[in-house]
Every structure is written in structure tokens, then in C-alpha cells.
């Protein structure tokens, strides 16, 4: 963002850049920058909190009155301590002939559809894998976890992107199952730690790494700290 701010400012536009990582926005020194120490993915801080978002914008736009380049820090911090996980009731086992993760993905489809109908589809399936094809994509990762080389497993696209669609499908469905708006990363922790599909993807990633696949093929299948 800061790089673009330099370029746009040189193009005759006044800019204000929000930044989530202090070292980045400080190191790149945009013409006007506001470090918002919020979780990655939430640069305005809190979803569905217009008052909070307006406070962020008010501080950001106040920087336009500075006569020289300036970087400041927003006064409030939103911290993630890594502990909160979404509490969602997963569907019961339905078809014992299916892999447990595939059965789970099928069972979440009504919740996914309800969430998309209510919220729209911003981060769910559809970038590479349609919602209809999510169970088959989960099966492909299950096969990789069981030892099938990934190129023979039928992964319907670049593995990281396919995994992102599966994670998006689950996290979107979870919003219809939970009774509260989750804090940042609570949905991701739920997916990787509490669902069969999440555990299957983690296992597939490990199998790919252990078999000597290129780092770039398997590493981005999950967040980098896993």
C-alpha cells in the first residue's frame, strides 16, 4: 500500500495509507500513513462497528492537514491472543461411505447457502472451486494425505487457491452457524483445529512437504505459521 501511495502522490493525488504492520508502514514511509494495530484482514478494525470505523477514518483524514509527510499510530489497538475459536455445531455424520471430511463438507452446504444469501459471497467458494465442487476438492486433499501424489489426486487448481476456497466455504458457513460475530482468526482456528476438512488439509500439506514437493506448492496451503 505504501508503495502505491508514493506512486499515486507523484501522480498528483493526495493520499492516506492505512497499515496493519508498524514496521512496514514505518519502513516505507508513505506521504501520509496511519498505523492501525489491528489483526491482518481487518484494517478498519471491527466489522459492523460503524462508529469505530469512523474514528479510524477521522484520524486518517486528519493527516491531510499536515504540511509535510507524516506517519502516526491510531490510539486504539485490537490484539489477538491466539486463543478464541469459533463455536459451531458441525453436522452429524450422514453418509458413512464417504470420507469423513467430504461428508462434513456436504453437510455444511445449507449453512453456506444461508450465509451467502444473507451476507453475499466475498470470501467463500468460487475463486477456483464452485460450492458444488468443494466436496470433491476436499476428497483430493484426503487422497494426498493418504499418500497419493498431489498431481494425481485431482486437485482442481493450484493447491493453495483450492485450499483457500475450501477454507472460505467453511468460514462462510460458520457465520451462519455461530451466534456471534467472531473475533479475528477465530474462524480460521475453528477450521484448522476443529473440522475434518481443516485437519485433512493440514495433513495433506505435511504429506506434500515430506515427499519433497517444492516449497511454493505446499507452503501457502495454510497460514504460514502452521
Amino acid at each position: 500500500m505504501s508503495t502505491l501511495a508514493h506512486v499515486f502522490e507523484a501522480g498528483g493525488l493526495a493520499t492516506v495509507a492505512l497499515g496493519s504492520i508498524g514496521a512496514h508502514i514505518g519502513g516505507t514511509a508513505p506521504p501520509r500513513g496511519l498505523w492501525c494495530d489491528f489483526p491482518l484482514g481487518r484494517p478498519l478494525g471491527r466489522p459492523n462497528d460503524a462508529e469505530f470505523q469512523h474514528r479510524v477514518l477521522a484520524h486518517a483524514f486528519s493527516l491531510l492537514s499536515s504540511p509535510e509527510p507524516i506517519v502516526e499510530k491510531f490510539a486504539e489497538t485490537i490484539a489477538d491472543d491466539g486463543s478464541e475459536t469459533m463455536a459451531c455445531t458441525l453436522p452429524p455424520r450422514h453418509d458413512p461411505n464417504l470420507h469423513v471430511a467430504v461428508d462434513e463438507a456436504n453437510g455444511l452446504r445449507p449453512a453456506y447457502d444461508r450465509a451467502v444469501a444473507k451476507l453475499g459471497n466475498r470470501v467463500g467458494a468460487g475463486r477456483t472451486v464452485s460450492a458444488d465442487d468443494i466436496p470433491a476438492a476436499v476428497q483430493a486433499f484426503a487422497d494426498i494425505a493418504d499418500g497419493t501424489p498431489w498431481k494425481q489426486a485431482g486437485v482442481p487448481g493450484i493447491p493453495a487457491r483450492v485450499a483457500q476456497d475450501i477454507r472460505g466455504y467453511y468460514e462462510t458457513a460458520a457465520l451462519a452457524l455461530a451466534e456471534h460475530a467472531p473475533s479475528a482468526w477465530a474462524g480460521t482456528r475453528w477450521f484448522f483445529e476443529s473440522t475434518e476438512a481443516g485437519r485433512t488439509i493440514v495433513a495433506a500439506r505435511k504429506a506434500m512437504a515430506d515427499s519433497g514437493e517444492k516449497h511454493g506448492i505446499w507452503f501457502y496451503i495454510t497460514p504460514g505459521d502452521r
Partner: protein
Amino acid sequence: MADADLKALTGGLELPDFETTAFTTPPPLAQATVAIVSSASLHHPDQDDFAPTDTGYRVLEAGRRDYMCGHWSPNFDATGIALDINTVFPIDRLDELAAEGTIGKVSDIHMSYAGNQFDLSGVRMDSGPAGAKLLRDHEVDVVLFTPV
């Protein structure tokens, strides 16, 4: 897994160096036309998604709300965007600021790039200047950059 761990992973990234800092003095905010430029790889469903090394941009229409996130990184929370697009792209907040007169006008177009780039030369030399020109041609005065 915690947010701080993921931020720490990016600590070793080489940051671009700018010898000078360009600086444009804006008109009074109450008279300014404001646009948002996001690095969240936002696009409308009828536009092309972003490829992994896509240094281009997508033009976002202010009157629509069907924004999809095509960012390739797994290292951000996506539920905030799913719940409220304003968490990354505060278009409703800008409409409110315009209605109360704090800003002059919300631009009829906005833009998004893909922030998951390691090689920024294409953005610096090509798509960045082109994007700035496009907004200038739409009489934008102020740009709010939002990351993901």
C-alpha cells in the same frame, strides 16, 4: 496461531526504498472527491480474478456492493470481510461522510490491486502510474489506501 506470529513472518521482507517522498497538497476535505484503493484483490464477480503475480488493477464501481476478495495470501482473517465489506473497503462510511459534508464527494470509481506481490517493479513503473492517471481523469483529489 496468533496474529502477531503471522505479522512476524513478514518481518524479513525487503521493503522498497524511496529516495524522496512525493507530496501533493489536497483541496479542503469538504471539497475533495475521495476514492478508495485497496490491496485486497477486490473485484466484481463479472471481472477476472487476480492471478498469483497479477500486478494490474480492477476498477470497482461505487454503486455496487458485490465485491469479492481474490487475495492469494492465506495470512489474513477473512471473516471480517465476509461480515462487513467496510472492514477493508469502507465505502458505506465514505457515503456517510459525504452525506454529512465532511468530504466533498465519493468517487464513482475505486480500485483494487493484489497486495501479495514480491516484485513491485510492475506496480511502480506501470500499473501504479496508470491507476493514478485513471483516478485523476475522474477528478479524484484524495485516495485512501487500505491493506488487507
